[in-house]
């Protein structure tokens, strides 16, 4: 079987208006979960990986690995850069290192994206998997 393609990228996390609205509606709402369990990708990068809009991808960094839905970025072109909105899914893969000033590295983390058959975990499943509580 041919090996699945992988792509080295830089991971950014940040705000989106959907995440902003979702967090105000409540963290357990469908709106919130759907707004933060996604990964915005450059259309060119998506073609390289052979993934389409709405397909699951696995994002891995030195700190963890998480499955999210790939979405075509409306803010393209940004080849080699992926964007996951702030939230429990992004936190699995960001760099906790604070470099002695208290601030972890939420932006600019080297990551690898690959297509996957694994499902995107729901909030409760993710909490159980990460913290064994919830």
């Amino acid at each position, binding site marked *: 079987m041919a090996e699945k393609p992988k792509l080295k990228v*830089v991971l*950014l996390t*940040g*705000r*989106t*208006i959907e995440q*902003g*609205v*979702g*967090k*105000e*509606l*409540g*963290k*357990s*709402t469908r709106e919130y979960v759907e707004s933060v369990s996604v990964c915005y990708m450059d*259309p*060119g990068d998506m073609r390289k990986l052979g993934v389409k809009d709405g397909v699951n991808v696995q994002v891995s960094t030195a*700190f*963890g690995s998480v499955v999210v839905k790939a979405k075509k*970025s409306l*803010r*393209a*072109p*940004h080849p080699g*850069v992926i*964007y996951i909105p*702030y*939230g*429990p899914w992004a*936190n*699995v893969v*960001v*760099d*906790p290192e*604070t*470099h*002695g*000033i*208290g*601030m*972890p*590295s*939420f*932006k*600019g983390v080297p990551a690898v994206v690959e297509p996957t058959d694994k499902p995107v975990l729901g*909030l*409760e499943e993710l*909490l159980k998997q*990460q*913290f*064994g*509580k*919830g």
Partner: protein
Amino acid sequence: MPIVKAVTCPVCGSLCDDIELTIENGEIVKVKNGCAMCEAKFLSHRSEHRIRKPLIRKNGELVKTTLKEAVQRAAEILAEANYPVLYGWSSTSCEAISVGIELAEEVGGVIDNTAVVCHGPSLLSVQDVGIPSCTLGQIRHRADLIIYWGCDPWSAHPRHIERYTAFSEGRFEKSAWRGYIAKIRTLIGRKKIQSTVRRLVFKKPPEIKAQLEPTFVPSIAKEGRKLIVIDVRRTKTAEMADFFVRVEPGKDYELLQAFRALIRDQELEVDSVAGVPVGYLEEVADAMVSCDFGALFFGLGLTMSGAKLRNIDAALSLVRDLNMRTKFVIMPMRGHFNVTGANTVFTWQTGYPYAVDFSLGYPRYNPGETSVVDVLLRGESDAALIVASDPVSNFPRKAAEHIAKNPLIYIGPHMDVTAQVADVVIPSAMVGVEASGTAYRMDHVPIPLKKVVDPPRGVLPDEEILRRILTEVRKIKREKAKAEAA
């Protein structure tokens, strides 16, 4: 139906105070003037995701309990802990924060606010370099050049541009709104013509590449207010800008220092800096020195990436340098509605804006050591009190893991991610909706928050809950001291 006018929106640091709410049978049914987040917040006060009863974890499950029992359990956890963490504070009133600091002193813990994972590096740099700033009103009326660096107000502070900067109608500076509409119409017209030519003459399908090319509109020399956006992505805000500079991720520091050189008329001996041709940069630097009143707003794009606080050092120094040529101010885009208030109240009461450690009985401040993420990563804390925040959802996994592992108390209105892994959950009234208080806007202007509807029955404001916990902690400590003396 009663309409309440001039309500302050408790969502982001812009604190828009012109919201109109329609109230029907004690519920908010309509929100006028607000952005999407504002509307979601006001309309969510009767949401099914609200916590209505205190909860306590028994045999691994959260079960309903009385407020008295929840307060008692929370006080026991804090009184028994050696080094508890008290975190959050940016989405509650200054009055509640004040009680929180008293509680931190009483239990000898570390108290920190969300600035630590947001504009903490900015505060460190301001302490190093200083900050030439002003109120948002000044910018609205006078600024003729607006720069947004590493921030996307369209997504995070949706009315910032309209109320305070480029699209606001000031006394001395007019709104750039009409120009923006004209520009959009021109671009749409041009695209339509291009697509017609392509279809009729070349008979080709639309090329994706053409759509992906950055739109560069050389309108930096236009009259009136100018908007410059510097970011790693072409955000929605960048699309509104007269000039967009795309910086490579993590290279903001180089770009800031390049601007510092350019505004001193020094020549750069390279073709590009941080992926941007020097020619572009010279044009932007020209716009910076030739404005009458410039304002630079910066966001987490600077504080979270690359050199972190050194980025802010460079940004503050750039603005300091620009003040030798013209009038220029700089302001961080604060996220939570009262994060500025949290820094202010912390400073009044302890001398420091965040990351304050009371474990030795007096306040100590050393971000990197006493900041909450570092305390958690080192695994030093043995309990946590979270107020009006959701660190389990917002901290890196390793830090969140340590919060979830130890006894955890959560005070807040919604069933947030932190609440779901907490051991004691106390519901609180939504500040600015169901409870009044004071909040500080991002320019340090204190603004009163209104109580417009009643909270669910039996639900108290954060301030009152914290007072009850504090009283209970003091009682436990008195009894313990008495028992030890006997």
